[in-house]
């Protein structure tokens, strides 16, 4: 097949910015068939494709793209599913520009092939058209417990149930999905898509027990010694919110991004009072940070009715960690970007409500350990943003509950569970871990990659353990 030289990615049709700020509906509509085929034809079908290495789970990217070009969408979806059980999710939220698309050969001279958009297209096509029956495998294998139902936990569960293990996922919240449900907003990742994947796992025979906090309701040790689970996978994520540790941070109206997004997404505060969880949005909102979480919080605040939303970030545009697409979407929607600006104090009124965020201007100095130029304050540049809500989105750490309640489980000095990257093995035999709780806040696909690796290792461990026993 001859690739046409089309220098740019086919644009993604999307809800107009002035409309979408008034609703929580998904922003990009997705490619239609013609556009998907045209985009698929931009792929050079390289003999030594570099994109596959750019994908943390090694999807055979040229192969699925070729199937789209050939209009064989079911095969395209099958190729994706071979390596990635959540293609509809990853096609939407992967930071493609720093993974598969970063190394795409077409991208050297022109824009890379829109791999993520094509992935979304194939996955959505399958969801809409496929009537493939789920064929559950007979579950006769050993019992495996999975802690947490984020992408890492869902992946482990999916891989193991297909091999006949009896898998139970324990989830603290009343709804499974992890960050996909409580963190990433509906307008970026419709919850129905995540639910579909969860329902699929249930059909395969995965049991999900909600409202169980491992470490409190039941410990890992009890799961293994009393409940008969022969292996445990810990995928409890990075749920510990970091704060700025500046004066005024406990004033009314200061939220962690986790709280702001959980109230909105999981508890649907955007439908208050029909849904009963309230959220205080205010008129002028400052969001501190510039990662995906910050963009999500800022765009959420706008949709909840804030008149003015400011991103406040201490480094420059170049260092902003969010996906490019999200930054662009935020800009289109009218979010203000205040770069090289660092908050130093939250100011409040006499009743204890936020009424300002005091900041200082920064300039970039020498590179620090991360290789990024260190921001340093400019003396005398303090000024105040008049805001009534501040959302702190400067990162999350690993959830400490499980390390705290599991003796013998080794952690790093930052509290991450130490696990072998090749197998997910921890310091306790039979206990595996992966995803954000091991790496710190990372990406969906990396958490899934870790889940995959751990599932293989668990399978191997249990097979040899039970052979020895026989």
């Amino acid at each position, binding site marked *: 097949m001859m690739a046409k030289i089309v220098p740019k990615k086919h644009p993604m049709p999307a809800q107009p910015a002035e409309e979408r700020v008034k609703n929580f509906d998904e922003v990009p509509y997705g490619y239609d068939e013609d556009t998907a085929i045209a985009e698929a034809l931009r792929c050079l079908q390289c003999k030594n494709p570099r994109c596959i290495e750019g994908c943390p789970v090694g999807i055979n990217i040229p192969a699925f793209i070729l199937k789209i070009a050939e209009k064989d969408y079911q095969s395209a979806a099958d190729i994706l599913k071979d390596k990635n059980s959540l293609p509809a999710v990853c096609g939407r939220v992967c930071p493609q520009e720093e993974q598969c698309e970063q190394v795409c050969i077409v991208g050297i001279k022109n824009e890379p092939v829109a791999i993520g958009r094509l992935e979304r297209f194939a996955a959505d096509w399958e969801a809409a058209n496929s009537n493939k029956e789920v064929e559950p495998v007979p579950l006769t294998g050993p019992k495996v417990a999975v802690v947490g139902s984020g992408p890492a936990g869902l992946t482990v569960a999916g891989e193991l149930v297909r091999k006949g293990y009896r898998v139970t996922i324990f989830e*603290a*919240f*009343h709804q499974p999905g992890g960050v996909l449900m409580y963190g990433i907003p509906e307008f970026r990742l419709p919850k129905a898509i995540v639910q579909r994947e969860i329902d699929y796992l249930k059909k395969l025979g995965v049991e999900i027990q*909600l*409202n*169980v*906090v491992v470490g*409190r*309701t*039941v410990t890992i040790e009890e799961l293994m010694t009393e409940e008969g689970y022969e292996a445990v996978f810990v995928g409890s994520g990075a*749920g*510990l*919110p970091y*704060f700025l*540790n500046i004066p005024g*941070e*406990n004033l*009314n*109206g200061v*939220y*962690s991004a*986790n*709280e702001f997004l*959980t*109230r909105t997404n999981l*508890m*649907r505060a955007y*439908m*208050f*009072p*029909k*849904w*009963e*969880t*309230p959220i*205080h949005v205010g008129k002028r909102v400052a969001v501190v940070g510039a990662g995906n979480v910050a963009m999500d919080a800022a765009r959420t605040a706008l949709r909840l009715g804030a008149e003015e939303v400011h991103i406040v970030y201490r480094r420059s545009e170049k260092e902003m960690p969010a996906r490019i697409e999200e930054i662009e979407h935020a800009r289109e929607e009218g979010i203000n970007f205040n770069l090289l600006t660092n908050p130093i104090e939250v100011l409040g009124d006499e*009743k*204890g409500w936020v009424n300002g965020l005091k900041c200082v201007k920064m300039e970039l100095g020498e590179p620090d350990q991360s290789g990024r130029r260190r921001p340093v304050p400019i003396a005398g540049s303090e000024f105040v943003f008049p805001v009534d809500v501040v959302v702190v989105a400067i990162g999350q750490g690993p*959830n*400490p*509950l499980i390390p705290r309640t599991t003796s013998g489980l080794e952690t790093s000095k930052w509290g991450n569970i130490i696990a072998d990257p090749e197998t997910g093995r921890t310091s306790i035999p039979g206990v595996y871990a992966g995803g954000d709780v091991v790496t710190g806040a990372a990406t969906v696909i990396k958490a899934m990659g870790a889940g995959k690796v751990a599932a293989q290792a668990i399978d191997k461990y249990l097979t040899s353990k039970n052979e020895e026993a026989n």
Partner: protein
Amino acid sequence: MFKIIEKQELAPTLKLFRVEAPMIARRAQPGQFVILRVHEQGERIPLTIADFDREQGTITLVFQEVGHSTQLLGALAVGDSIPDLLGPLGEPTEHPEGKNVVCIGGGVGVAPVYPEAKALHEQGYNVTTIIGARTAELLFFEAEMAAVSNQAFVTTDDGSKGHKGFVTDVLQKLIDEGKKPDFVIAVGPIPMMRAVAELTRKYEIKTIVSLNSMMVDGTGMCGGCRVTVGGEVKFTCVDGPAFDAHELDFDEQVRRLEMYKEMEKKVGGEC
């Protein structure tokens, strides 16, 4: 699903439920709490585990109907189920040195202080209890408290039962009589806990209070339940809910509990 197997009306807006929750009952410790949702669109509401029975696999909840969610909960009957119930959450209460303890419960705070008194009594502590309410009608667990106390006192603001006045009056009297306790556990409305803390501070009596901060997850994930204790920020749900009363920033707590007052009025209304 968690089935309600017993319901009692302790006072007009005060209900007691015994709920089937074997996993929670098995691990529950005094001082811990649960988070529940009454229905699909409901809030997550925290309630103290007022009692537990490991053998029967049940926990007891006592709650005051203050707003929409607790009213919905109160409308459930025996045989109904609570769809979501998560726990036991929080750290079990740690006790200071000494064997002489005064346990004080004000209003619905009697519910969380009861399991503390019970456990301490079982461990051989010399337990004095003081329970207080606005009026006799709102008193509950009198017999239960008396059963786990070496000495039990009741106060009402209006004098309709027991001592007329506040729980702190009784505590002051005990101290004046030379029965200064080694430590005090007080649970109730913030003004009450604060008054107790001010009194015991004068006499350098270690005092533990339990907070009902605003919560979402209850697992240390949202940071919404932050409190300042001894100048340090803590999360009520994972570091508490019990804290040293003399180190606590009460003003901040009062303020943070006001946060959704206006908005809550809209729930369950016409809209």
